[in-house]
C-alpha cells in the first residue's frame, strides 16, 4: 500500500502545482492519473499550442508549461501512479482515506485533492454492437505490451498517429495485421503513413481504406471483425484482437459516484478553501464549480494555494502555519 499525506487525483497542471503549494507546507503528495503521462489536457489535447495567459510567460506551449511544473515540483519528490484510474475513495474510521485504482493499487492519505479536470481521459469507442462484451476478450483500446499480440491476427481501426504507429510496431510481432481506415489518405505523420503504405505494398500488412468496422464475431472470444467497404462490399476479417484507436476524450467517470455535492459535471466547493461537501476532500481546477468560476490554469493555481493552507490542519493538527514568502523561506526540499 502507498501511503502519503495527500493523494491528488489528476496530474494536470493544477494537480501538479498543488504538489508545490502543499510541499511548501511540508506535506507530501502522491499523484494518480489514468493517462500514462502527466499534464492532463495540456499534453493530451494541445501539447504544441501556445498559451498566452500564464503570468510571467508571454507565450508558452502546453508541453513546455508541464515541463516547467515538473521541474518546479521536483524538490518535493511527489510519487506517481500513472495509467490507472481512481475508482473508489473510502473514509476510514481513523479519518484517513483509502483510494483504490482500476489496477487494484491502494493509496492511504489524510487528505484527498480532486484535480480531475474535465474527467478521465478515456478512449473514443466506435459504435459496434456488443463491443463491450468483447472488452478483455479480444478488444483493447490501447497497447501496453506489444508482445501479448505475438502470433495473433490483429485488426486495428483508425487513421491517426497512434493507429499508424501501432500498426507498424505490431506488423513486426503479430502473425497478421490489418489496418482499417475510413478515409483514403492518412493525416498522421507523413513518414509513418508512407512506411505503413510500403509495408502494405510488400504484403507485410493489410491496409483497407475507405471502409469501417461494423460488427464482431465469436462466441465470447473474438474471432472476426466485420468490415463494410464504402464501395458497397463487406467482409469478415479473421481476428484474435481488435484494437480501435480513435484517440481519447474526457469523461467524468467515477468522481460522480463519490457522494460529493455536484453541479452537473462539476464539484461544488466553498471558495474559502475549495473544500467539497466532504471534510478533508478538496476539489481544484476545471473539476470544481462556484459562482464566477473560470476554467483557466491560473485560477486553478490560486485554488491550489488556498487549498494547501486549509489542508495543513488535517496533516499537522498540532501545528500552526506561519505564512512566509518563498523569497524569505526558500524551497525546503524533502
Amino acid at each position, binding site marked *: 500500500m502507498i501511503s502519503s499525506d495527500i493523494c491528488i487525483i489528476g496530474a494536470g497542471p493544477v494537480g501538479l502545482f498543488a504538489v508545490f503549494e502543499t510541499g511548501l507546507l511540508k506535506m507530501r503528495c502522491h499523484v494518480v492519473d489514468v493517462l500514462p503521462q502527466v499534464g492532463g489536457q495540456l499534453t493530451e*489535447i*494541445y501539447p504544441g*499550442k501556445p498559451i498566452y495567459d500564464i503570468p510571467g510567460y508571454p507565450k508558452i506551449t502546453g508541453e513546455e508549461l508541464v515541463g516547467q511544473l515538473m521541474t518546479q515540483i521536483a524538490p518535493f519528490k511527489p510519487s506517481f501512479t500513472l495509467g490507472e484510474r481512481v475508482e473508489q475513495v473510502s473514509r476510514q474510521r481513523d479519518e484517513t482515506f483509502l483510494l483504490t485504482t482500476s489496477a487494484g493499487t491502494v493509496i492511504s492519505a489524510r487528505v484527498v485533492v480532486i484535480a480531475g479536470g*474535465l474527467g478521465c481521459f478515456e478512449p*473514443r*469507442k*466506435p*459504435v459496434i454492437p456488443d463491443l463491450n462484451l468483447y472488452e478483455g476478450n479480444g478488444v483493447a483500446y490501447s497497447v501496453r505490451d506489444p508482445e501479448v499480440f505475438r502470433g495473433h491476427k490483429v485488426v486495428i*481501426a*483508425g*487513421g*491517426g498517429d497512434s493507429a499508424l504507429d501501432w500498426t507498424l510496431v505490431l506488423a513486426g510481432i503479430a502473425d497478421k495485421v490489418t489496418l482499417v481506415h*475510413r*478515409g483514403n489518405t492518412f*493525416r498522421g505523420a507523413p513518414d509513418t503513413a508512407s512506411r505503413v503504405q510500403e509495408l502494405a505494398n510488400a504484403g507485410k500488412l493489410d491496409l483497407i481504406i475507405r471502409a469501417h468496422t461494423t460488427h464482431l464475431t465469436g462466441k465470447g472470444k473474438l474471432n472476426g471483425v466485420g468490415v463494410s467497404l464504402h464501395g458497397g462490399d463487406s467482409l469478415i476479417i479473421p481476428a484474435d484482437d481488435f484494437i*480501435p484507436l*480513435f*484517440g481519447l*476524450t*474526457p469523461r467524468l467517470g467515477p468522481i460522480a459516484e463519490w457522494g460529493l455535492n455536484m453541479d452537473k459535471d462539476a464539484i461544488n466547493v466553498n471558495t474559502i478553501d475549495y473544500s467539497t461537501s466532504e471534510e478533508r476532500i478538496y476539489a481544484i481546477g476545471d473539476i470544481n464549480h462556484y459562482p464566477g468560476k473560470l476554467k483557466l490554469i491560473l485560477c486553478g493555481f490560486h485554488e491550489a494555494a488556498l487549498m494547501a493552507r486549509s489542508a495543513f490542519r488535517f496533516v499537522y493538527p498540532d501545528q500552526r502555519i506561519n505564512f512566509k514568502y518563498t523569497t524569505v523561506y526558500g524551497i525546503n526540499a524533502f
Partner: protein
Amino acid sequence: MGSMRSERKIEFKAYDTDGDWRTVEITPDASLSLLDVLQSNGFDIPGVCGGLALCGTCLVKVICGYEKLPPPDDEEAAMLEMLPDTNPKDRLSCQLPLSSIMNGMVFRLQNYE
C-alpha cells in the same frame, strides 16, 4: 429601423441528442461559430477545446443544407477522420462561422461518445 434589423436575421433549427428541437433566430456574425450560438442558446454541447478542432465534442450532423457549407479545411477534416462514427454530413460546429447561408438549415447535435 427595427424592421431593417430583423430582415437581416436568419433562422435555423437544431435538434438536441434527445430529439427535442428549437429554432434559433439570430443576426449573422462571422466572429461567432455555430458552436458559440448553440451554447449561448442553451444547447448542451461540450466544445471541450474551445474551437480549435482538437476535441471533436462539438460535432453536429447537418440534416438540411449541408451542400451550402464550404468544405472542411485540413484541420477540421483531420479531426473528423479521427472520430470513430462520423457520417459524411457531420461537421465540427466550432469551425462553422455564423453566416447568412445558415438560414433555413437544420442541425442535429451528435452524441458526445
